[in-house]
């Protein structure tokens, strides 16, 4: 999947791709355009220009529904779960299994939720019938991620999934992210935490000032190099810097 478009300022000719079965980390300083890029892919903001390829076929994404029908799911930073509903109810929120009389098929939803939770090895949740309000931050994040998986999605975009979590819970979520990729999904991980990224990412895309400036293989790079790319500390080492005129950096 590749995507490039030029917009007024937020994103300038950004190339971004993610493959099945890999975790592509998307990093960059605040205002680098990470969120804008994600919103374009998710159909929340339409791109001014550019192309999106899905399985090598050009596709158009006009709204969130288009993205969802392609199998692109976004797990937002602020979770978007309903505290008063239980895990099963949240997993199926807005897409409940029902018959022609709008009657809920509760057992179907419960059985499938249990299956997905088991498949992702989310074992810390005691009962899938407890309300989300009683879950820890890591568990809530797991529910949000599992919801994306439930719908046979192909691409899962995680926006700062570990930002508000403690050490053990971060571990839990990172394991989950790794398992998503193992199952063949394309995972996009947005994070400020390079330590987390170096643990799970396959490749790393660096955005700066609305441009994609580098794609690193995790195996062949160092945290130092990525930090320099993010902050433009040592421009000489950063590929792509030559393309940016000096006045644009100030």
């Amino acid at each position, binding site marked *: 999947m590749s995507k490039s478009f030029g917009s007024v300022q937020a994103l300038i000719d950004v190339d971004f791709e993610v493959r099945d079965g890999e975790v592509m980390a998307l990093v960059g300083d605040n205002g680098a355009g990470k969120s804008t890029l994600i919103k374009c892919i998710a159909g929340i903001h339409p791109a001014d220009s550019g192309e999106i390829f899905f399985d090598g076929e050009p596709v158009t994404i006009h709204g969130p529904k288009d993205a969802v029908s392609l199998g692109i799911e976004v797990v937002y930073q602020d979770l978007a779960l*309903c505290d008063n509903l239980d895990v099963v109810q949240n997993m199926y929120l807005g897409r409940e299994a029902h018959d022609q009389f*709008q009657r809920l098929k509760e057992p179907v939803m419960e059985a499938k939720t249990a299956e997905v939770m088991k498949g992702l090895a989310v074992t810390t949740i005691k009962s899938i019938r407890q309300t989300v309000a009683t879950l820890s931050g890591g568990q809530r994040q797991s529910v949000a991620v599992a919801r994306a998986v439930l719908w046979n999605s192909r691409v899962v975009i995680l926006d700062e999934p570990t930002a508000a979590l403690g050490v053990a819970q971060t571990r839990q979520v990172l394991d989950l992210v790794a398992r998503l990729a193992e199952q063949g999904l394309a995972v996009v991980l947005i994070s400020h935490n390079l330590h987390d990224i170096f643990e799970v990412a396959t490749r790393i895309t660096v955005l700066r000032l609305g441009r994609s400036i580098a794609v690193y293989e995790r195996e062949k790079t160092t945290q130092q190099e990525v930090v320099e790319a993010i902050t433009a500390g040592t421009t000489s080492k950063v590929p792509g810097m030559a393309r940016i005129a000096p006045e644009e950096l100030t």
Partner: protein
Amino acid sequence: MSINPTAAVPEIEIAPPHEPLGQRIWENLRGGNLGSAPVILALGIMVLVFGLTASNFFSAVNFNNIITQMAGTTLLAYGIVFVLLIGEIDLSVSYVSGVAGVLVAELQLPGSGHKLPGLLAILLAILGGVAIGAGQGSIIALIGVPSFVVTLAGFEIWQGVIQRTITQGVVVIQDNTINDTANYFFSTLGGWIIAAVVSAFYIGGVLSSVYSNRRHDVPIRDPWLVAAKVVALPVIVFGTVAICNHDRGVPFALLLVIAMLLIWTYVSKRTTFGRHVYAVGGNAEAARRAGINVARIRILVFMISGAMSGLGGIVLVARLNSADLNAGGGTLLIDAIAAAVIGGTSLFGGRGEVRNALFGSLVIAVIANGMNTLGYTTGIIFIVTGIILLLAVTLDTIFRRLQARSGR
């Protein structure tokens, strides 16, 4: 490529979603999920105290009186529960019910040139309530005016409409169909048949849900609790009918209250619409992102509130066999909202059940009836009802904070 969640991952023992009942109750309490427990406890204590102190409290006649007195308010309170569930408020229910009462009285009026059959008049009056709810709900959901203000305006407007319509002070209702909604009592045999049908429906519902769970290999939580419910409900139903039959029989108003309880419980718990109502009340933004049409849900909820106000208003005027200038006035609004809240419906949205309205309504009616029998004045009764309302909201607030804490 589809994800096969069971592949590629070693079998890992997932904790069974099945825990002892005691532990579930504790988890619920810790999670701020009190449900109807406090109100049922309070109700039991009240009935006991009044039964021991007030001489005429424990009688079949008084039981039927309480039921017919509270029926109209309870119907309004069902609508309020839905409105509270989405985190809004409807202050117009009392005078919307008044409008429906006046409407039904005017439509059946002999010699008015538009004397309609009772059933048609009832239907039109309810539709009037639905239309008002749709109008107010649209202003709230589509334009974004706070429901408090819109329905407060409705409170004034509909009160004015009632005063403008009833120019002679009172409209007498002669139509029997309308008056029967509040004053008809079933025969003894009729009562037993109702008890049998209600019990059969309940047991059938429980069994079909158990069967459906078995078919999908979903474990049944607390089989003993299920068995207890299957035994307890018919006992309660037949017991109630026995008491009613001791007096004039089962009041039609009771049947109406129970039928509406079952219908709205079904709608709120077993349909996609009901699920979306809870979702909008729990986190409207999450609901929106999940593709739920939040505005549509809000408008529909205010239409339900309007419909229940309409039906309740008809029962209220039918009890007096007339609609007068006081239709929808007095403590009706306060009682309807208090019933929902005392019953355990959260004012913050997303938590509560339709049956809360019935329990809360019972509390208010029992206090008024019992204290009246003991010779207390209305002043004292207001004070006591007010204190209980305050207690209910305080409990809700405390447990909401507990819930927020247990989430971390």
